[in-house]
């Protein structure tokens, strides 16, 4: 073997090892959710469940706790968050990128500096706010505080800035209003960036835990991560049920990611568009 081949071999060898280490917990989770209790507890471990169509763990988990309800709550919260965040992000980015108003730079700078404040600190003030508004133990408490994002606004504004002015002027001459121009020209051009933003936001919403734990104490309002957490402590002796529930929790985001992967790579690789 030549030197080059050796180095290629080792590169791939370590990459494969790394990938296996990354994938293994996921595989274990998904595989175990199809195992029987005996299979799961046997030693040496059973790597492959005997029956991939054995859905009894899912059935039992759904019986033991209202996972369907949790799932629905998660979907409602995530979809609402994503829709609201997208709208505020798009409008905010358009305003800061395209509109001229006094104090624009200062206001945007102030907003950016807020990104330095850690989320954990905001939790306290946010909690007081939602308590005063009487939102504790309602679904909106999981949505409203997350309906804007300075970070995403910043990302999208930068993208909007890279769209040539001449497109805007051209559209204005053609009779398009700011509103029409935004939705008919800017947003479609920014699609890769927007998909990335939506995906990141969906994942963050879906996985949100600390805030949910603080503000939701009613079982039927729990989201999946929260429900899973409670289920874990209740069903400590049935890990294959826990892993089935965990699979239900994780799978939607993985599927979403696989669908949107093409856009994300594009969104990251493509800083702007040609002039």
């Amino acid at each position, binding site marked *: 073997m030549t030197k080059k081949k050796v180095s290629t071999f080792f590169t791939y060898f370590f990459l494969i090892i790394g990938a296996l280490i990354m994938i293994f917990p996921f595989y274990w989770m998904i595989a175990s959710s199809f195992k029987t209790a005996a299979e799961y507890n046997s030693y040496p471990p059973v790597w492959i469940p005997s029956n991939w169509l054995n859905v009894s763990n899912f059935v039992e988990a759904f019986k033991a706790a209202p996972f369907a309800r949790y799932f629905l709550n998660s979907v409602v919260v995530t979809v609402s968050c994503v829709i609201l965040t997208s709208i505020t992000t798009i409008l905010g980015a358009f305003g800061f990128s395209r509109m001229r108003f006094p104090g624009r730079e200062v206001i945007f700078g102030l907003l950016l500096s807020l990104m330095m404040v850690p989320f954990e600190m905001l939790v306290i003030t946010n909690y007081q706010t939602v308590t005063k508004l009487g939102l504790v133990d309602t679904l909106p408490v999981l949505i409203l505080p997350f309906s804007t994002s300075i970070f995403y606004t910043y990302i999208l504004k930068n993208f909007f800035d890279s769209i040539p002015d*001449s*497109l805007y*002027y051209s559209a*204005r*001459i053609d009779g398009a209003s700011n509103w029409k121009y935004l939705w008919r020209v800017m947003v479609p051009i920014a699609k890769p960036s927007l998909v990335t933003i939506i995906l990141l936001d969906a994942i963050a919403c879906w996985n949100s835990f600390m805030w949910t734990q603080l503000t939701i104490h009613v079982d039927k309002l729990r989201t999946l991560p929260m429900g899973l957490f409670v289920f874990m402590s209740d069903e400590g002796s049935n890990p294959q049920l826990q892993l089935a529930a965990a699979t239900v929790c994780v799978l939607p985001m993985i599927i979403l990611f696989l669908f949107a992967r093409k856009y994300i790579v594009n969104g990251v690789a493509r800083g702007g568009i040609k*002039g």
Partner: protein
Amino acid sequence: MRVKIENLTKRFDDAVAVDNFNMTFEDGELVALLGPSGCGKSTTLNMLSGILPVTEGHIYFDEDDVTKVPPQNRGVGLVFQNYALYPHMTVLENISFPLEIKKVPKEERIKRATEMARLVQIDKYLDRKPKALSGGQQQRVAIARALVKQPRLLLLDEPLSNLDARLRLEMREEIRRIQQETGVTTIFVTHDQEEAMSISDKIVLMKDGHLQQVSDAQTLYDDPHNEFVASFLGNPPINKLYGYIKDGKFVLEDGSATVNIDNPNVKEGQTVVLGIRPEAIQLNQPQVDLTAVIKQRYTMGKEELAFVNVGNQTIRVYLSNDYEFAVGDSVNIKLRKKGSFLFDRETGARI
């Protein structure tokens, strides 16, 4: 439509981009707005389209004062230097976008857009996205999009400067053809004198935000109002001899030669510039205005030219084939009246 500009002025902070511009564009004319980079051509165009607010002055479309009318209500089509096509739309969608905004029914939209695409000969590519088109094709799409809503005024901002030389020639004629077929009043911005001369009915020459001269290309060349106009046009450029007036004659700066000039407007002692187009210089004729020494010869295309010294100043002349010329030779120069101009040294104004 007739377009009239009255005392049009545009200031950016302190900088004056367009200064007290007066001009009338007649209905159906194709006018070239010509001038060096940064002279305010785009600014003027953008004020006409309504993109840029006017600092002072007025713009009239026929009888209407449109100075404060927003761009969408002016009925103008504008083609940008970079074409500004919408990258996510197909050619057809791009061309029909102005109609879509106007809420024209879809069927008619497609019909009119397709017709327009045919006019600019891009109808083979209706389903393509702009990035799958060449520069010249993108250009045609941009023109079609500007024309589809039947504007009263078509504005083109250096539309050919992104094209290669060959395509530029072709597109020049295309623009001329399309303009004649539609009869729309058209203002064409360029910094290229040749482009302006070949395409337009009339040339408006600008410098530093000021209007210099308005006329057809030939008049601009043969009868420039000032030194700038004379030196902006022409290739090879006009020769300049610096000097002053003594006894009604032109005397070279170093006093080494005198030229009889037949100009009643000169003042005694006035410092002047004698502008002479290279083709207005005849060598070794019976009549002699000046003598010169050949410094260096060169060729441009089929022509033979030379730099010659007159006193301590250098000018360009065409060498005729009738004589043998060698570097260091002394030659007699005769100036033709046509192509020789006298300018005031201070103001640059023609005398």
